[in-house]
């Protein structure tokens, strides 16, 4: 049996559904899934068994899942396979896929599971032909429509990046293949500058992936606060304001409820509103696990408090927050307490908050509202818009496809390798190896790179040959 490197992909239709099934297949699948699955050791369980557990990112629970184990050769691909049934939110699915990739799996190419199944003799030719059209539709999407699907100048931008890389590679190849001739070689500082400028161009594309998702899915927002500080009221206040365009998607099986709100045309998605409502109804502790999970999924965190005590509670929670998360401090019940003077400083992020914390509270900025009367809600919305990167990312180019994202990240990594190589003074042939990897990954998005491109570029730009 041919067992290849582990690959993963969503096996069910994408979009919000009750359940999503992620399939992982290949050599080492159990080891890969074990790294993120808290439950039984999948290497030790029987084939064709089902196991309950959680998917974790470090200590944080991403989702509760059911895992089905299929051992080679008794699986669709005939390889070791795991199918993870998780909640059908795109967000959760992407998180799990990201974790799998981080643990050593690779995103599957179009039709790759079927390819493997075929390679391992699961199908005969006739059956394979029957599924081929299905697969073809898939790959056609990935290679033709995917580009069209993207907004604005993505493909243009990649093409010009690729051209610059080819130019770079040509300069290196030139000194390798024509080192004996009277050609001027690119100086290393220029090469460094070129790589840095390429990286500078790719970085926003990579970052835009989150932005792209936000465009499609809404910016995830978490409302965090102790019981009875008014989370539910705030939620309703935010939503009520926009009643006409509020959507509520209720999950059918478990309690996934997400409310969506549009401000200035930007979509915000409030995470775990079920949790918010629950904790209002049933008096319980702050629900630390639940809050952490919500914060983890969010890009913007609304820290709601109404007293020094409830503030202290959320401050403790905010300490471990990733730097890139945006935090807005919201003082509720303005109708009951004396409002703070209006804040006009920047919105601080997790790290920034941490360092500012010992100082005076007022410095880090707060929005004071009354969820009940609706006072300050407009200001809060403005803060939401201002603190989200969508407002700042005026860039025209957005990456929305996880596959493209993955290749861009690898391109960037290869460029970093090349840059490190330049710093260490490695020779052109090894530099070229890194550049080729970068070109390969760009090629996976724009179409294949052939060596002829390099030579054609050399011949058109440089006078070489005896």
């Amino acid at each position: 049996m041919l067992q290849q490197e582990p690959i993963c992909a969503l096996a069910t239709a994408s979009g919000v559904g009750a359940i999503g099934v992620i399939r992982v297949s290949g050599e080492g699948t159990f080891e890969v899934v074990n790294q993120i699955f808290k439950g039984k050791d999948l290497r030790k369980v029987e084939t064709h068994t089902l196991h309950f557990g959680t998917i974790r990112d470090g200590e944080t629970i991403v989702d509760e899942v059911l895992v089905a184990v299929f051992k080679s050769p008794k699986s669709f691909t005939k390889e070791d396979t795991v199918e993870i049934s998780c909640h059908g939110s795109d967000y959760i699915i992407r998180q799990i896929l990201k974790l799998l990739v981080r643990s050593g799996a690779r995103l599957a190419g179009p039709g790759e599971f079927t390819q493997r199944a075929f390679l391992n003799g699961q199908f005969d030719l006739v059956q394979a032909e029957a599924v081929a059209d299905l697969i073809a539709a898939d790959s056609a999407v990935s290679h033709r429509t995917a580009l069209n699907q993207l907004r604005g100048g993505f493909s243009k931008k990649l093409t010009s990046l690729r051209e610059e890389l080819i130019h770079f590679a040509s300069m290196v190849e030139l000194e390798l293949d024509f080192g004996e001739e009277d050609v001027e070689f690119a100086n290393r500082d220029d090469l460094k500058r070129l790589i840095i400028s390429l990286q500078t161009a790719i970085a926003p594309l990579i970052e835009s992936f989150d932005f792209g998702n936000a465009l499609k899915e809404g910016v995830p927002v978490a409302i965090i606060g102790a019981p009875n500080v008014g989370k539910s009221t705030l939620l309703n206040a935010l939503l009520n304001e926009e009643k006409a365009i509020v959507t509520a998607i209720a999950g059918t099986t478990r309690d996934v409820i997400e409310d969506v709100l549009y401000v200035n045309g930007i979509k915000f998605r409030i995470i775990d509103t079920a949790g918010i409502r629950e904790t209002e109804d049933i008096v319980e502790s702050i629900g630390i696990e639940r809050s952490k999970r919500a914060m983890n999924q969010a890009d913007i965190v609304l820290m709601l408090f109404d007293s020094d005590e409830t503030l202290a509670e959320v401050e403790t929670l905010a300490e471990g927050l990733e730097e890139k998360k945006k935090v807005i401090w919201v003082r509720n019940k303005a109708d009951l307490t004396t409002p703070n003077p209006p804040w006009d400083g920047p919105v601080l992020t997790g790290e920034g908050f941490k360092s500012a914390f010992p100082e005076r509270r007022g410095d880090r900025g707060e929005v004071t509202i009354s969820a009940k009367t609706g006072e300050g809600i407009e200001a809060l919305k403005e803060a939401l818009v201002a603190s989200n990167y969508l407002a700042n990312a005026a860039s025209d180019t957005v990456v929305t496809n996880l596959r493209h994202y993955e290749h861009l990240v690898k391109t960037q990594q290869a460029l970093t390798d090349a840059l490190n190589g330049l710093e260490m003074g490695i020779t052109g042939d090894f530099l070229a190896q890194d550049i080729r990897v970068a070109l390969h990954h760009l090629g996976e998005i724009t179409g294949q790179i052939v060596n002829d491109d390099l030579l054609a570029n050399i011949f058109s730009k440089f006078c070489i040959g005896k």
Partner: protein
Amino acid sequence: MFPKYDVIVVGAGHAGCEAAAAAANMGSKVLLITMNMHTIAQMSCNPAMGGVAKGQIVREIDALGGQSGIISDKTMIQFRMLNRSKGPAMWSPRCQSDRVRFAEEWRITLEQTPNIDFWQDTVRELIIKNGVVAGIKTSLGIEIQSKSVVLTNGTFLNGLIHIGEKNFGGGRVGEKSATGITEQLIELGFESGRMKTGTPPRIDGRSLDYSRMEEQPGDENPAKFSYTSTPKLEHQRSCWITYTNEEVHAALRTGFDKSPMFSGRIKGLGPRYCPSVEDKINRFADKDRHQIFVEPEGWNTVEIYVNGFSTSLPEDVQYKALRLIPGFENAKMFRPGYAIEYDYFPPTQLKLTLETHLIKNLFFAGQINGTTGYEEAACQGLIAGINAHQNTHELESFVLKRSEAYIGVLVDDLVNKGTDEPYRMFTSRAEYRTLLRQDNADIRLTEKGYKIGLAAESRLQRVREKVANTELILKELKTIKAQPEEINQQLVQLGTATIREKQPLYQLLKRPDIEIDDIKNLKGSFAGFLNQFDEEALEQAMITVKYESYIEKEYLMVEKMNRLEDLEIIPNFDYDRVSALSFEGRQKLKSLRPGTLGQASRISGVSPSDVSVLMIYLGR
């Protein structure tokens, strides 16, 4: 008058000679037919072998049991390892040859090969029976039977020589062209095309002023091409470098109206990387000078090859322009440069064995396939000769992969992509060049050459010893740990950082500023442990240690690619049935008919999604 041969080789250039020698050494009865016994193994262009990527090919030919490396070693007048300052994959052996000695040595080698017969004549026609080649007919009307034929016609098929406005038929200056074969092949259904190449004027070395040029001597410690014990070069001749200037360019421009290139008289496409000097000044008008290499043609001759000055302008224009080059003020010309147009057959009509798809047991090798260069020709001759023998003895075909040899890259490129300009090898054509080094061609290929009966057993023994020694050295380097107190002072002297605690020598060797010789010379408790090993094994071990991560990365890529390489596409696969293929991909696949999915994936126009679609369709 003639027995029935296993293999008839038509043409005795670099391709023909290697083909004949390989087939004969493997045990085939071979007839080598050439138009002129005195021009066997002529170097029609510059008197040199090897160079970047080409030197690696010569090493590969040698590792497989071919002759070009041995003959180059015996006849060189200068040796240089190019690209020394770069990584080991770029090191490229190149030699300057004695043109006459080179040809003579080839002839001696062939004459001493028992299975080779010779016949001086021009082949006019192939004998074909039921789609299988059965022999040849000559201009004397003689029919000679054989089980296979290797065509290596070089530039002789309908060769047309251009000098200024004059042109005349010929295969090389002073030699007749060959007619008849192209016409017959076209009738059989082959497609043909025209290509062009050129050569510079030859000069009387006594008329040059070398004090105005820059000397380019050979390496102080010259290496060689062959892995066998050929003699080392004791003394060498230098080359010289000079430059054209604006005056030279102006003089050349006066002949542009008579240039066969610019006037359109030459229809064939020339190589972009081997442009004529008029092409250079025309296309790169902003460059005010071009480099000229002044290369001696041998030990005892005064003849000089003016590398970089290939031209087909009128001879008087050539002469006037030459004399404006520093050092050439009083130059006397032996003969002018010229351009030559010739027929070639797009190599996409071949299998990876270089056998034609149309006619069984008919092989093409060398310039007839649209390549340029002695090394490119020689390695094709070797592959064609080997496979002619294999075919006629009902043995398995011999094909090298892209990850195994530059020869594999070359044949795969030709057969699967074709070429519309003369094809020359570059290192950038190889995707796994970190693996395809000149230092390990024997490790890569000698066993394969031995298995088919071409490389002698003594070669295999040598390689096995080299590999075993390399492994032994690596083991020692990992085991032996140096103490700070015994080596730190020496490290300071070497200009590298000291160590704080004991460290395996392996780690030290990884440093960019430490060579294996430095390790060998270190004094300490372990001193002397490398003395028992020869240079080749030491070098091999050093490369393995220093470039480990890059080599490993490349092996991973090879492994990935090989999964596709192993999936065969049946010869008559109906691409029209696969509705999901892209339009362009389908067209390309239909015309090029790749043999494996790996080959398909390299065709420009075939997208990754086409490859996945095909994968599903393929039977195992």
